[in-house]
């Protein structure tokens, strides 16, 4: 009985906590609307929330059409990153020379701005989907592969001793210990990778494209159509949330044993 009461109290305090940011967001939107109205700010500088909302409703099918292009590029880049990350991480963990050769490169590449390579892809592969998929792959690949390597490699020594003392084969240790251990890490990498692959697709579209939300940003920018720009940004925000939530949802089902035990969600830093 007490436990149930505590649970209910927890739930109430949690929903109470959610009130603060919601109230703040609502307050900000009201201030925004109010100041646009009071100071009669022109739309090309800062459109009010009502006008942005109307734009989204009016141009919904147009926005969705471009959104689907970006989603496609993001999804394919992300999927490619996963497909490449798995065999590479296994190879790195399995063979020491591969680790010694590849890891320094991967660590090195972390400190350079990878989006700068995107223009090269545009020169090589034109204005179609492929260069954006490549950029999106390039950005998503590293967090996924490095988290996977960490998860497969960093096992508690006691667990390894245990498996040895029970004369487990290498393969058994791999499937029964290393792979389960790697999953929480992998999902951290996937969450960040999903967000970065969206960034990659958008920046790729910035540089040269005819479709997609990134293209629309530049299109609206060139025409000083700030209302469209804001509508586009709202859609990008939603797309980011969607992509992130999908990975989070899969995580909750795939490794519920870990998600439940986890004390705090890791905060992802994206660009």
């Amino acid at each position, binding site marked *: 009985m007490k436990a149930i009461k505590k649970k209910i109290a927890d739930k109430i305090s949690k929903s109470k*906590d959610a009130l*603060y*940011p919601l*109230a*703040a*967001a609502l307050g900000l939107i009201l201030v925004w609307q109010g100041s646009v109205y009071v100071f009669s700010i022109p739309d*090309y500088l800062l459109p009010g929330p009502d006008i942005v909302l109307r734009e989204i409703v009016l141009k919904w099918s147009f926005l969705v059409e471009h959104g689907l292009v970006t989603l496609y590029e993001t999804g394919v880049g992300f999927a490619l990153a996963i497909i490449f990350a798995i065999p590479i991480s296994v190879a790195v963990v399995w063979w020491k*020379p591969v680790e*010694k*050769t590849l890891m*320094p*490169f991967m660590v*090195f590449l*972390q*400190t*350079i*701005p*990878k*989006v*700068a*390579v995107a*223009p*090269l892809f*545009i*020169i*090589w592969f034109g204005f179609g989907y492929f260069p954006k998929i490549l950029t999106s792959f390039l*950005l998503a690949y590293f*967090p996924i592969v*490095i*988290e996977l390597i960490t998860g497969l490699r960093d096992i508690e020594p006691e667990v390894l001793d245990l498996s040895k003392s029970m004369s487990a084969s290498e393969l058994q240790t791999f499937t029964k210990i290393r792979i389960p251990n790697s999953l929480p890490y992998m999902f951290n990498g996937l969450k*960040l990778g999903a*967000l*970065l692959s969206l*960034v*990659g697709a*958008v*920046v790729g579209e*910035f*540089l*040269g494209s005819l479709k997609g*939300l*990134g293209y629309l*940003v*530049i299109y*609206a*920018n060139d025409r000083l159509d*700030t209302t469209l*720009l*804001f509508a586009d*940004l709202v859609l*990008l925000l939603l*797309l*980011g*949330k969607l992509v*992130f939530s999908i990975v989070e949802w899969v995580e909750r089902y795939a490794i519920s044993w870990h998600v439940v035990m986890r004390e705090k969600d890791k*905060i*992802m*830093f*994206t*660009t």
Partner: protein
Amino acid sequence: MAGNRGTRWEARIKDSLYPIATTFAILILWQLSIVLFSVPDFILPGPLVIIKAFFGHLRLLSGHTLVTVYETIAGLLLAVVFSIFVSIIIVWSKGVEKTVVPLMVFFQTTPKIAIAPLFIVWFGFGYTPKVIISFWLAYFPIVIAMITGLRDIQPEMVDLTKSMSATTWQTFVKVRIPNSLPHFFSGLKLGGLVAMLGSITGEFVGSDAGLGYLITMANHNNDVKLLFSVLIVLVLLGRIIYASTVLIEKHAISWHVALRTEEEKFFTA
């Protein structure tokens, strides 16, 4: 002890042979295939041609590099100053924390860089919008690291200061601030990298100077040699910015760096 250190260095040098040998092999293979298949320069120039172009464009490159460096550092400094203020306010007041932190976490799952063109509309083609974009990207990792560092103190430490009847102010200065420094520096390292990314992307979107501008120019002119030269500068610049934050960290909090066991991982775009 000395012998130990010697063998450790030897092992390090031996380990670094693998990537160096691979790099050389890739460069030689690259150069050979360019010569063998006579790949034209506007598709893929060989390493030798790129190095020649790099030194030929040295004056052009250094001028644009200074612009990007300025935007990056200005944005990063702004982010640091703002983060310190905001994080102290947040740690001081529970109400502010409950209001602001969820909003900041919310923004973490959105592609922040997409806002860059908006800053161009508002602030024109000069340095200001790029500085703001650098600030915007660098701010989040630094402020969240600061908040974590100021807030998450070991409970034993809090008990200790209480039992010694330290004031809240004393606890803040003697316990919370030192505790926050390692977090701050790891935020700063990531912040430096994303600040540079921000200024480059800002230059992509609209500018007349800087390395990002040079990239778009080279892109429009199909000047792949220049493009690769800029990439070399970007690699060097990324390394320099990262290495300088590491160096500052090493001097500022040597007590922590020497003891740190966990490897830090940064993922940038």
